[in-house]
């Protein structure tokens, strides 16, 4: 009986212990406490701290400090004024160190150094505005859940009625080169104006060089704390959300990463991140949503950070490679090895770039052919109307010619695009069509004037009454062949300007490609070669046309 009682008592004790243990393991708090206690115990064993390849969590307790990489020139997130550091990332680092019971030791990092410094064991943790994408998963271990989320935002004058993607089609948006969200902007038919540094975008908005600018919302957050900026501009809409992650080194940081996972869960659930964000005046929408997520029983467990229903996935920014990307890379390497030239051909390396490139070439050729055809047709029409005996036909035609001659090419294109967009919904085809009409009118008006002048001379020489009008026009065209040809060449040379109104020709396509890929020098050199070659071909063809017209003139 006593034995049975002791067995039951032992089983009950084990059961209670098991329940307590299980319950403790199910909360991130308990799991974190267990992990930290074990690491502290390990650090307190004599000789442990002197061991090489020490686990980083144990070493943090050995050193009594955690080395954190933070930014120094990222307003609201990581700034430094003398010895005083401030910002959301900095305060998160302090909260992490406080929870560990150690001191934070800050190291300055930037976008280029934040990952190498972890790999080189110069820092234990980076909290430096780093977006978590799938490519970086192979370089560092990201702490889950993410401690912040940014998104690209479109900022512009409050007067501009922009609410979503349909409103930006055909508009120019100022962006920085290499920004991952550029490809998305391009796909919505917006034009890009590229800048090297994000820092110039607010100034370009203020001086009205840019009507709209797209950049990370965390970048603009600081500017919106300035009353004059906030009074003039607002955020139109956001897109391309990127979760930000604290990160540790891939090796030797397993327990540290796990501890930070738990800590991040707790910080979300208890509103620690939220409070820090409010103190630093950064956006809190994401953190408020995350607080709800991590308060849910299903997520508030020690396995929550691995639960896909709770954590956000890494952003997958990889672009699909072309079938021949390997050969292109091999060719680039060969050129580098044999000629020492760092040739980069991004248009052949990824499918989005390749599609843009092919479409750009096709559209450029269509544009050149269209501009040549339109120039010739308009020159005949305007040449004939300017030579008309009717005042009602002749003077409007002359007035139109003077207006077209007085309008700079960019303005004429914009007018054509504005009229086209008032009639048709914006599309690439409409932009190309508008450009063809504008280039045709501009050059055709000049060529038409030459035809009209030739008509006058023919009438003076031969007496117009005896010559049928169409025949006279034909002879005038032959006589003004040199002028017509020179304006045809001019039309072909002017086609790249069509990119200004959103026609997706090669310049536009390559600008889009370089906005999300590298290799600007190679790309724009290729562009120059392409257009010079096209113009040379047009010059040759026009030379043959001129010969044909002049031979025709020679026929009595």
């Amino acid at each position: 009986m006593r034995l049975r009682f002791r067995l039951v008592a032992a089983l009950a004790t084990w059961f209670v212990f098991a329940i307590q243990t299980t319950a403790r393991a199910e909360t991130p708090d308990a799991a974190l406490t267990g992990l930290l206690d074990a690491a502290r115990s390990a650090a307190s064993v004599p000789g442990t701290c002197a061991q090489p390849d020490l686990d980083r969590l144990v070493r943090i307790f050995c050193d009594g400090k955690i080395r954190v990489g933070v930014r120094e020139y990222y307003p609201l997130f990581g700034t430094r004024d003398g010895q005083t550091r401030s910002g959301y990332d900095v305060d998160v680092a302090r909260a992490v160190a406080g929870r560990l019971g150690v001191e934070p030791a800050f190291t300055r990092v930037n976008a280029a150094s934040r990952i190498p410094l972890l790999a080189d064991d110069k820092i234990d943790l980076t909290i430096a505005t780093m977006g978590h994408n799938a490519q970086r998963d192979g370089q560092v271990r990201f702490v889950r859940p993410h401690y912040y989320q940014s998104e690209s935002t479109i900022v512009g004058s409050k007067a501009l009625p922009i609410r979503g993607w349909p409103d930006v089609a055909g508009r120019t948006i100022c962006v920085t080169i290499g920004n991952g969200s550029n490809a998305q902007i391009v796909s919505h038919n917006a034009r890009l104006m590229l800048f090297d540094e994000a820092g110039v975008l607010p100034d370009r908005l203020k001086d009205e060089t840019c009507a709209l600018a797209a950049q990370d919302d965390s970048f603009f957050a600081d500017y919106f704390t300035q009353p004059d900026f906030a009074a003039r501009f607002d955020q139109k809409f956001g897109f391309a959300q990127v979760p930000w992650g604290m990160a540790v080194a891939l090796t030797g940081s397993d327990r540290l990463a796990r501890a930070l996972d738990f800590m991040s869960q707790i910080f979300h659930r208890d509103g620690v991140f939220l409070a820090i964000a409010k103190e630093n005046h950064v956006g809190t929408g994401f953190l408020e949503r995350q607080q709800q997520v991590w308060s849910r029983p299903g997520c508030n467990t020690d396995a929550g950070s691995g639960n896909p229903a709770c954590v956000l996935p890494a952003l997958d920014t990889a672009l699909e490679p072309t079938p021949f990307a390997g050969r292109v890379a091999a060719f680039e390497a060969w050129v580098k090895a044999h000629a020492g030239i760092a040739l980069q051909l991004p248009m052949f390396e990824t499918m989005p770039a390749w599609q843009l490139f092919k479409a750009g070439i096709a559209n450029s050729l269509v544009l050149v052919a269209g501009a040549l055809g339109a120039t010739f047709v308009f020159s005949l029409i305007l040449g004939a109307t300017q030579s008309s005996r009717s005042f009602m036909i002749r003077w409007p035609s002359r007035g139109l010619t003077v207006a077209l001659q007085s309008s700079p090419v960019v303005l004429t294109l914009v007018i054509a695009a504005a009229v086209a967009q008032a009639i048709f919904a914006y599309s690439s085809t409409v932009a190309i069509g508008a450009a063809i009409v504008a280039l045709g009118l501009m050059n055709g008006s000049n060529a038409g004037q030459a035809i009209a002048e030739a008509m006058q001379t023919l009438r003076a020489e031969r007496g117009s009454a005896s010559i049928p009008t169409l025949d006279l026009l034909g002879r005038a065209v032959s006589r003004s062949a040199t002028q017509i040809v020179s304006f045809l060449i001019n039309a072909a040379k002017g086609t790249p300007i069509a990119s200004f109104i959103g026609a997706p020709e090669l310049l536009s396509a390559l600008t889009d490609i370089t906005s999300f890929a590298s290799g600007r020098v190679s790309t724009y050199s290729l562009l120059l070669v392409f257009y010079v070659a096209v113009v040379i071909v047009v010059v040759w063809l026009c030379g043959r046309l001129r010969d044909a017209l002049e031979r025709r003139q020679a026929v009595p």
Partner: protein
Amino acid sequence: MTLRIPDDFVPQLLAGMALNFQIAAVALLVGLALGGLLGLARLSGGFLGGCATSLIGLMRAAPTFVVMFFLLNIIPPNATLLGVNVAPSGFMTVALSLVPYSASYVADNGAEALKQMRAGSPLGALLFLPNVTRAFFVLVMSSSAGAAIGVTEGIAVILREAEQMPALGDKLVLFAIGILAFGIALQAGFALVRALQRHLGRLALRDRQG
């Protein structure tokens, strides 16, 4: 339709147009120097002349807009030469993009002027002046390409204002103001060219009579 144009629009437009003239002046000056050298090299014949002819042909075929983006993208913003920052500003990028046109134009017309001079017709050679003046006004109009890279020349000022106008009618009125402003400048320029040509013609006549 109630078109509201800000009070500072006209001063800004005039300041922008002044920039167009400055860009054209720089492009023409560089073009005169480069085109003059290329023209002389071409006349010298031989290998050097062949190279100059090829180069002039390529410059003639190079679209200004493409050259502008080429320059903008191949010169790093922090490019230095002997410790001096040589990265061109937006203004200089537009001006330099016009140089292939101006240099090839100067080379072609300069060569023609030299031929006239050698043929004993100094007045024929002087036709170079109205031709260069005409090229200058073509450059003024072409410098509007600067609007594409954020240079606040005349057209950029107009487009910036038009961006704030929702109605097509308002925009067209604004564009008409732009055409008028550039048209007056252009027609004045061409009047100057015609006056120069008439003056040279009178000189030629007097020379012949004398």
